[in-house]
């Protein structure tokens, strides 16, 4: 890869122009970029759906896992973009083959854990992946790069989060429009996703997982490209990288050793002049992205290293002597711009006032400074108070949100069965352990009505607590039977038989035959299980 074969025109740009440049770059390397990201997203979706939806039973967690793994997809995208900058766009297969190497790079764990919520992750990713910096230099470098373009980076993240939401809601709305209504075909998309009803429909969760993978595959490359555009802009601003590359091209064109040396010096001064500290602290900064710097052709003949070769000291001295003149000639080139004189009007009195020594009384100056000091103190106190208030408001909002989430969760749960129906205690703990045994005991003592009352009460308890049939306190036997029939409970036939028997004993004062009672006991055990 040749560092001088830059496929983009580097020049000073605004942050948003830089993001536009990133988008154009992404369009140029569209095939490996988007397909690679999509393949990775689909693979992650398949894995997460299998593990979290199929085995663990939580479709929402499966969706969350794919969202969480976005920094992993970003690395592949940046790999393709970094090569595309130097007109060496890798094929899809090559970019996928590079994946193991990218995964082995350090920093992935941090990106997936404590730096997952970094709003500038697309801008800062090249520091680790391309420049290979670690530790304190990496922190300093990340801080430096984020300066002046941090707002644009956050805006980019907000925009893409919004795009993702728009696509997500739009797709849900589209599916809700085209899918026929009714529970028979598909659960309502709005119900499943927007109302958090996904856990009840795991297959719908899988479908939405695939949809989300496509959304990620569509948006994430653009997001990384925007961050990469900002990264290029910052390097251009900080290190005059564009000037360096321009000089290298001129040097290569002239191919003269003397001019090469002059250009090398000019390059060195151009690179070091705007940001000398970081350029000295991190030698890698002065080079193009590390991937390019590490390539075999990334060290042109005009680089500073060439000037230090053995046997070239005489030529170097001559070149140094001729350097000022050569530099002036070089700087006279149109690439370095032209001088421009501008005129503007200013009040003379302002400058006079600034230049004039103060004749204000000392006590007045002190008073002004004191008042200004009070003002600053007040401003600082206000700032602290406002921060405190904001923190309290934030905590209150979080508390309200948590409370509301709990309420929503509680509302989704079916209402708990009542403790009693029409004066009958139907709590399971109020019933004997072995219902049938207790009923037979009462029958043996001749208490037929009490025995049937217990059997009927136990049946209501089972239906209320197990089948979640919502009995009301005013329900008559007929109402209870109607609810059980409507709920299509498995024991509805037996319950109808039991209700009829109970009505005959309770209201018609009739006695039932022994075999009929025996059949009810046996049927109870069959319908509801022997133990309470």
């Amino acid at each position, binding site marked *: 890869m040749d560092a001088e074969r830059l496929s983009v025109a580097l020049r000073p740009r605004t942050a948003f122009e830089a993001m536009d440049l990133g988008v154009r770059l992404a369009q140029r390397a569209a095939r490996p970029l988007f397909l690679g990201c999509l393949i990775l997203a689909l693979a992650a979706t398949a894995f997460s759906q299998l593990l979290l939806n199929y085995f663990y039973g939580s479709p929402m967690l499966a969706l969350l896992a794919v969202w969480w793994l976005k920094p992993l997809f970003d690395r592949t995208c940046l790999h393709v973009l970094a090569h595309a900058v130097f007109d060496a766009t890798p094929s899809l297969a090559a970019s996928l083959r590079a994946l193991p190497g990218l995964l082995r790079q350090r920093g992935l764990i941090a990106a997936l854990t404590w730096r997952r919520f970094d709003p500038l992750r697309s801008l800062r990713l090249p520091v680790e992946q391309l420049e290979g910096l670690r530790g304190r230099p990496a922190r300093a470098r990340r801080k430096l790069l984020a300066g002046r373009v941090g707002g644009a980076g956050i805006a980019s993240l907000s925009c893409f989060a919004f795009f993702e939401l728009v696509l997500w809601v739009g797709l849900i709305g589209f599916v809700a429009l085209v899918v026929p209504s009714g529970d028979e075909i598909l659960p309502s998309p709005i119900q499943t996703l927007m109302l958090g009803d996904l856990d009840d429909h795991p297959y719908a969760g899988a479908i939405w997982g695939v949809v989300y993978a496509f959304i990620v595959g569509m948006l994430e490359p653009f997001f990384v490209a925007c961050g990469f555009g900002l990264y290029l802009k910052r390097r251009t601003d900080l290190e005059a990288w564009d000037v360096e590359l321009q000089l290298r091209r001129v040097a290569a064109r002239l191919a003269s050793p003397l001019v090469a040396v002059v250009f090398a010096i000019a390059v060195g001064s151009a690179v070091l002049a705007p940001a000398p500290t970081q350029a000295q602290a991190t030698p890698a900064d002065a080079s193009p992205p590390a991937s390019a710097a590490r390539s075999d052709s990334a060290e042109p003949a005009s680089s500073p290293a060439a000037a230090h070769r053995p046997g070239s000291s005489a030529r170097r001295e001559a070149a140094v002597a001729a350097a000022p003149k050569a530099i002036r000639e070089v700087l006279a080139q149109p690439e370095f711009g032209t001088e421009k004189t501008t005129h503007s009007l200013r009040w003379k009195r302002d400058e006079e006032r600034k230049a004039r020594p103060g004749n204000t009384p000392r006590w007045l100056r002190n008073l002004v400074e004191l008042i200004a000091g009070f003002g600053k103190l007040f401003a600082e106190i206000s700032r602290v108070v406002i921060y405190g208030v904001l923190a309290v408001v934030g905590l209150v909002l979080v508390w309200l949100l948590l409370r509301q989430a709990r309420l929503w969760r509680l509302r989704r749960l079916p209402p708990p069965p009542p403790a009693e*129906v*029409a*004066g*009958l205690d139907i709590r399971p703990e109020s019933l004997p352990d072995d219902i049938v045994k207790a009923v037979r005991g009462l029958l043996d003592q001749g208490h037929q*009505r009490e025995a049937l*009352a217990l059997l*009927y009460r136990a049946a209501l308890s089972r239906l209320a607590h197990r089948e979640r049939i919502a009995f*009301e*306190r*005013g*329900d*008559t*036997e*007929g*109402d209870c039977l109607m609810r059980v029939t409507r709920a299509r409970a498995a024991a509805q036939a037996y319950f109808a038989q039991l209700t009829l028997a109970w*009505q005959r004993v*309770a*209201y*018609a*004062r009739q006695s039932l035959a022994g075999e009929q009672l025996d059949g009810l006991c046996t049927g109870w055990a069959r319908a509801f299980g022997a133990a309470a």
Partner: protein
Amino acid sequence: MNTLTFAEAHALAQRLQQEIARVVKGQRAVVDATLAALFAGGHVLLEGVPGLGKTLLVKALAQSFGGSFGRIQFTPDLMPADITGHTLFDARNGGFTTRRGPVFANLLLADEINRAPAKTQAALLEVMQEGQVTLDGEAHALPTPFLVLATQNPIEQEGTYALPEAQLDRFLLKVLIDYPSLQEEQQLVAWATSGRSGDRLDVSAVQRVASAEELLAAQAVTANLLIDDSVLDYAVRIARATRDWPGISVGAGPRGAIGLVRAARGRALISGHDHVLPDDVKAVAPAALRHRLLLAPEAEIEGLTVEALIATILERVDAPRQ
């Protein structure tokens, strides 16, 4: 008087149902409620817009048991004597002749009862309560069984006289008659327009399946149907709940609880069980109580209805179960 077993009485009820169903298409609940009142020996107030078959139902019922049928069209100028009858001096034989009014029938249809003034309506009070008419100081017993079926139109208010509470309380049930379902109306229209001209009510298809004596015997069976203390208690608790329920200014009195139990017995006979179930009480409660309750003004302002309040009461009052 003949005596009937429960099974015979139930079979009689079923036959009456079938015969009425020959001409009254749909309105099963209304027919059942009317029959329940008939077997319970109570009177029925039917409320519904014109053209829903109220008169047809009464005529079919009279035809089915061969009883006599009287009809009074209540109008603003109707006099009490037009209902009960009167005594006239006959110059030819020099004595007083008593002319009996239309109330002397087994079934009396008081059509649009709220169109007559209160004085005329009150003439029915003694008739409905005592089953007799006093003419010129002499009491004349009405034929048995005796059932008044009064109708009123809920949408026309001009020129009408609302029934006084005392008279409303005389009715065992107030049955709301609503439009039939689509299927029922299709059957009804097909039946009423096939081979018939004009709009006279034709009940010739109804056959006589019982006599007045049999009906009396069935009423006796109904009155003796077993009702458990818990079911009786349930009916009383429902009636009592109406007295202090929010939104109700005047609740049902003891006559309401009595009516509830009588009507529940009638329904039990029709349903075919020889004892009264809580379901019978609950089923007849709206018809037995709705005309005995008076809404509080604030409830009316809030848009609450008697029906909704009764439904709430029935949901909240514990059904009997031990």
